[in-house]
């Protein structure tokens, strides 16, 4: 039996507003338990919610980035259920008239060579619940309401995803986009991005969808990917052994690396949705939507595709540059003037520069490296004035001082000798003193050249251009006559 895998995702993204969705408490991770709370987010008797403007604006921004239609008239609804971390015993969410409708997320697959469009059902605003901590020694559960009321957007996809790798690409796109838009810090270890993964298997050729199982609240992209893999495998096994998939809700266990059953088809959940009577309908003007649109930067996948196309960079490099605005800005500034291949610029920035920043534990902004100086250094390597190795030394200095790389090269004696006649003389000397070299080379031991180059470099005190030296050695060994 052959199956189509059908996956839909519901992604919750915490918005990084300064205050909560419905009250003025600080929206901040960590801190002493129950220290960012007030009567509103604690669900005390008689309190009323008060909508945070910035949260709505951020949600509209997300909707625009994901090609949704923004509802100019949107309303909130109550989703009623009992849980210790849910202060009011209902969550203010949206069901009927959500803020953003439709839309799609374009994901990149297969090393950036393939694009797929994943349709969205909607994006709506809601509020987070508090946090529950289970005490290992006893049956007690501890509740902290700092997170209660933090604004969330829920991004609901159509069941267009077909594999765990698509799940990964989708979640990465959501995360990168949210970061790029500046609406969330997407710190998964702080719970800013969580996914519910819905999976069913459909028999190939059939139009009937299989029973859907859900893995709730997965807090990492890798977790979601692996959870999907496990569940697909499980469902396939159930069907292959002649059984029927029952509706089950799981939670992903990060340490055990498996899906744990939370509940079978739950009898007790009935959300009893109705329009929130304590809140008015929010009216949004088209001009306001347009203004938010103008604040949207180049989106991550757009940037990746552009870097790959315009600079012929591989997907991996483009992805890393996309993730770091400062490095990307330097890359594009240097590449604009550099005569050589942009890939070389990328290598230096993603390689040595990154390595040095990490080693010295400094930020990009803290280093003194300018695009101009880096570009000049790369040109010097390109035209053989200095070697690649010399460049590694020079770049460390450039990160501490704004000075012309040629000055540094001169000071440290790193300028490569490229004068043809000087090199020819040195090569002739070395070959005379090491007659075994041409003998061994002619016998086929070509790697003796490396030794010879080394000897030449010694005489030049390391300042010879190794490429040229090698060329001259070859000429002299093979006894070619200059014309």
């Amino acid at each position, binding site marked *: 039996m052959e199956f189509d895998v059908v996956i839909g995702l519901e992604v919750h993204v915490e918005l990084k*507003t300064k205050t909560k969705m419905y*009250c*003025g*408490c600080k929206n901040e991770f960590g801190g002493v338990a*129950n220290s960012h*709370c*007030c*009567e509103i987010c604690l669900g005390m008797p008689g309190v009323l919610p008060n*909508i945070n403007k910035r949260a709505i604006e951020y949600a509209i921004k997300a909707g625009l980035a994901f090609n949704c239609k923004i509802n100019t008239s949107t309303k909130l609804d109550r989703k009623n259920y009992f849980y210790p971390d849910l202060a009011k015993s209902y969550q203010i969410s949206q069901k009927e008239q959500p803020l953003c409708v439709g839309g799609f997320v374009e994901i990149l697959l297969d090393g950036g060579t393939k694009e797929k469009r994943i349709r969205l059902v909607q994006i709506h605003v809601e509020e987070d619940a508090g946090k529950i901590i289970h005490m290992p020694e006893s049956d007690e559960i501890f509740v902290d309401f700092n997170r209660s009321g933090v604004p969330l957007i829920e991004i609901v996809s159509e069941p267009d995803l077909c594999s765990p790798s698509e799940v990964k690409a989708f979640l990465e796109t959501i995360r990168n986009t949210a970061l790029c838009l500046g609406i969330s810090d997407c710190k998964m270890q702080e719970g800013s991005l969580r996914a519910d993964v819905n999976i069913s298997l459909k028999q190939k050729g059939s139009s009937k969808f299989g029973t859907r199982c859900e893995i709730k609240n997965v807090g990492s992209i890798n977790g979601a990917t692996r959870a999907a893999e496990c569940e697909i495998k499980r469902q396939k096994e159930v069907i292959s052994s002649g059984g029927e998939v029952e509706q089950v809700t799981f939670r992903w266990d990060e340490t055990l690396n498996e899906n744990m059953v939370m509940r079978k088809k739950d009898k007790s959940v009935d959300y009893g949705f109705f329009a929130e009577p304590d809140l008015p309908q929010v009216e949004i003007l088209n001009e306001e939507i347009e203004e938010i649109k103008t604040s949207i930067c180049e989106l991550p996948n757009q940037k990746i595709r552009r870097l790959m196309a315009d600079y012929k960079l591989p997907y991996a490099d483009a992805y890393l540059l996309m993730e770091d605005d400062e490095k990307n800005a330097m890359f594009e500034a240097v590449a604009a003037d550099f005569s050589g291949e942009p890939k070389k610029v990328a290598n230096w920035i993603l390689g040595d520069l990154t390595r040095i920043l990490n080693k010295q534990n400094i930020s990009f902004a803290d280093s003194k490296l300018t695009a101009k100086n880096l570009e000049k250094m790369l040109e010097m390597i390109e035209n053989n004035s200095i070697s690649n190795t010399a460049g590694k030394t020079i770049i460390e200095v450039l990160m501490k001082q704004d000075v012309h790389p040629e000055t540094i090269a001169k000071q440290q004696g790193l300028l490569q000798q490229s004068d043809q006649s000087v090199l020819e003389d040195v090569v002739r000397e070395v070959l005379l003193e090491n007659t075994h070299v041409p003998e061994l080379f002619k016998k086929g031991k070509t790697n003796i050249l490396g030794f010879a180059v080394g000897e030449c470099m010694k005489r030049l005190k390391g300042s010879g251009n190794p490429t040229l030296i090698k060329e001259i050695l070859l000429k002299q060994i093979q006894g070619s006559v200059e014309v």
Partner: protein
Amino acid sequence: MAFDVLRVGELARFEFTEEEVKKFDGHIKEMLRMISIIPEVLETEAMVANKVRLSDLREDVPQGSWDSFDVLANAPKKKSGFFVV
């Protein structure tokens, strides 16, 4: 539309005595009969009391948080700064 006291009680987190079940069952059925006289309508757009403009919503400025002592002041059970269940 079959009303079931026990099932609804479950949803509302109540436990009932047999006496209560009988009593409520009767009362609720009477009220449902009363409610059934309201005619059906084709369009059921919910009426929203009022509207607010995006520009008039609350500014994102922190204020109003309590000291955790106050937060826990009414807690039936608390430990180390947490509500305990």
